[in-house]
């Protein structure tokens, strides 16, 4: 039966070879960027995270939520308590009117999480050409390439190559979509959030990618900080066990 399946698969491969697709030919690997948090002793660059928060605040928050992150977590970025409160107050979070019980919004506090800009997915779709802007809290861990992917996506917008359209007329970028070779199917519903030919775009893209990495992995520094001593301890422990192993076996190994 396996042989039967194998023969038919082989026959299909020859008789009906898989057609090349635009994705296979034009999709690009993430650009490589160096970030301060890489490597076993990597740390976040506080100033970069603050600039990244600024970019999120000015641009991305219009469409993307960050609903796993609480404003109080921003203390990690080096903000004082007062500054955290000020930032939180710039966001409106859903609440209930204490007198009437009606739904309303109020200013955020340090204990709140970053709200989602849309009440629900239907509202999000209606405002974005039918696509839902995903929550960004875990984006830096939810794609291959992580922060480098976000950076590549933000700086990767370009005109669709002529050859692509010539070779794959069906893959022409549709209305409301934007060509970006870093996106899995090459065309996405997000218009370039950062201007394509601005000198600042590269830096902003890098900063917001670093910020989103922090948002996805806020404990990275704790992890690196405890990992080094843990490893040193384990190496010493292993060395000691090796020495006792040698001592204990000394009389048996002579044979």
């Amino acid at each position, binding site marked *: 039966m396996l042989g039967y399946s194998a023969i038919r*698969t082989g026959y299909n491969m020859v008789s009906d070879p898989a057609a090349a697709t635009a994705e296979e030919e034009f999709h690009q690997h993430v650009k490589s960027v160096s970030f301060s948090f890489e490597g076993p002793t990597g740390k976040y660059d506080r100033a970069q995270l603050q600039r990244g928060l600024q970019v999120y605040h000015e641009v991305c928050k219009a469409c993307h939520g960050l609903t796993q992150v609480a404003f109080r977590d921003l203390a990690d970025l080096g903000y004082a308590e007062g500054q955290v409160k000020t930032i939180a107050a710039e966001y409106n979070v859903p609440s209930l009117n204490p007198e009437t019980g009606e739904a309303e919004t109020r200013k955020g506090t340090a204990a709140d999480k970053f709200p989602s800009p849309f009440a629900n997915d239907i509202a999000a779709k209606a405002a974005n050409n039918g696509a839902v802007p995903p929550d960004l809290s875990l984006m830096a861990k939810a794609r291959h390439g992580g922060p480098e992917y976000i950076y590549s996506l933000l700086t990767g917008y370009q005109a669709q190559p002529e050859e692509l359209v010539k070779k794959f007329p069906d893959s022409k970028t549709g209305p409301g979509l934007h060509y970006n070779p870093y996106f899995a199917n090459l065309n996405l519903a997000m218009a370039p959030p950062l201007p394509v030919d601005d000198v600042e775009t590269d830096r902003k893209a890098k900063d917001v990618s670093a910020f989103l990495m922090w948002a996805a992995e806020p404990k990275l520094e704790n992890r690196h900080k405890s990992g080094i001593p843990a490893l040193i301890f384990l*190496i010493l422990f292993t060395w000691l066990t090796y020495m006792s192993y040698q001592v204990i*076996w000394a009389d048996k190994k002579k044979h």
Partner: protein
Amino acid sequence: MSFPWANHYEPQHPFMRYMDEKLPLPRFIYNAIGGGYPVPRNLNYFWNFGVLSGAALMLQIVTGIVLAMHFAGNSALAFDSVEHIMRDVNSGWLMRYAHANGASMFFIVVYVHIFRGLFYASYKPPREVVWLLGIVIFLLMMATAFMGYVLPWGQMSFWGAKVITGLFGAIPVVGEPIQTWLLGGFSPDNAALNRFFSLHYLLPFVILGVVVLHVWALHLPGSSNPTGVPVKSEEDTVPFHPYYTAKDGFGLGVFLIVFAILVFFAPNFLGEPDNYIKANPMSTPANIVPEWYFWPFYAILRAFTFDFFFVPAKLLGVLAMFASILLLLFLPWIDTSPVRSGHYRPLFRKFFWFGLMPCIIVLGYCGGSHATNGVVLVSQLASVYYFAHFLIILPIVSRIERRCRCRTPSPKACLARLRPHNRGLEKNGSHYRFSGRPVLFGHARLLGHPHRLQYGV
């Protein structure tokens, strides 16, 4: 337990004597993993991996219990509760990364443990029940790992659960009712998540129970060893404690170093990014892949692409996948060679290294890749080899190798046939001994008379 020369437990302190009379737990431990259990002295590092599997199981149980204190087994809350663990629970990130990577480490050490069993034919009598219980443990581990992966309720959790529970749908007539009954619905949802949580908490303790049986069954004949020749006297063994506690302690240290590197410096290396996206029944991921330790079996599952007469391809795939594991239950009887260790089975060894091992690696690679026609074709060929290895090659090889022994005129010639590159065999009284360093692992005395090799049972 089973060796006449085993050390005897003799409590010194009055309290220990009292204990020994009322609840002889110290005696039990002494005989199981203390000075009272004689172990062959020539074991190599492959024999560390049973203890390492036990250590990995304990790590999973401890970290898992802590996670369960903060986890919410509800489809609306599960994903966020995992993020709560990662962000707000003290050292929650450590517990979660340790548990997730601990599962991978568990499979790594168990795979090495099984590899040891296959190469040294540890599955042969008198240890066949040890082997059977090992397969039971392996099946339970797979079920536990699968259900654990569903709990964080990410995209891969959901779609993995959907694909795997969908396999029951392949069974004719009763399949779909069974699937609905197992899931508590037509598709994985809160009911399924909740029962998976319940079972994921239960099964590790069942595994623990079977591990106790596994070790108990092992302690009757005692451990095998790299030569495959049974130990004959006290000279061939050492007490488990302190000799193997020390050696296993060193192995445990190396294990923990690898584990710590993963947890602290590459915690998401073995994971699938899609599982950081909340489960969404409306959006199918481009490539649904299980965790790496299921890849070879997943490749066999996907190798059946065409219905065969009336049998649907999906059913064939399911049957083959289960057969690929259940087949191992019959190994003690499939492999009839009286020689145990792969070191003394030149033909077996060739098929093992150049057939079975590459085949499993190729299957693993195919199971983790996108199923293009090319990948499917390769996994089909590898699956054919996998089954052929156990059902055709191994029975034949184990018979041919036996015949080779019968035709040799003297023990010396026989040994030379079995290990042609062995030189330096000397007659020493009634025993043959090796001079120089011809023995790969361990200790020449165990080899003793070459006839013991032939009947190495």
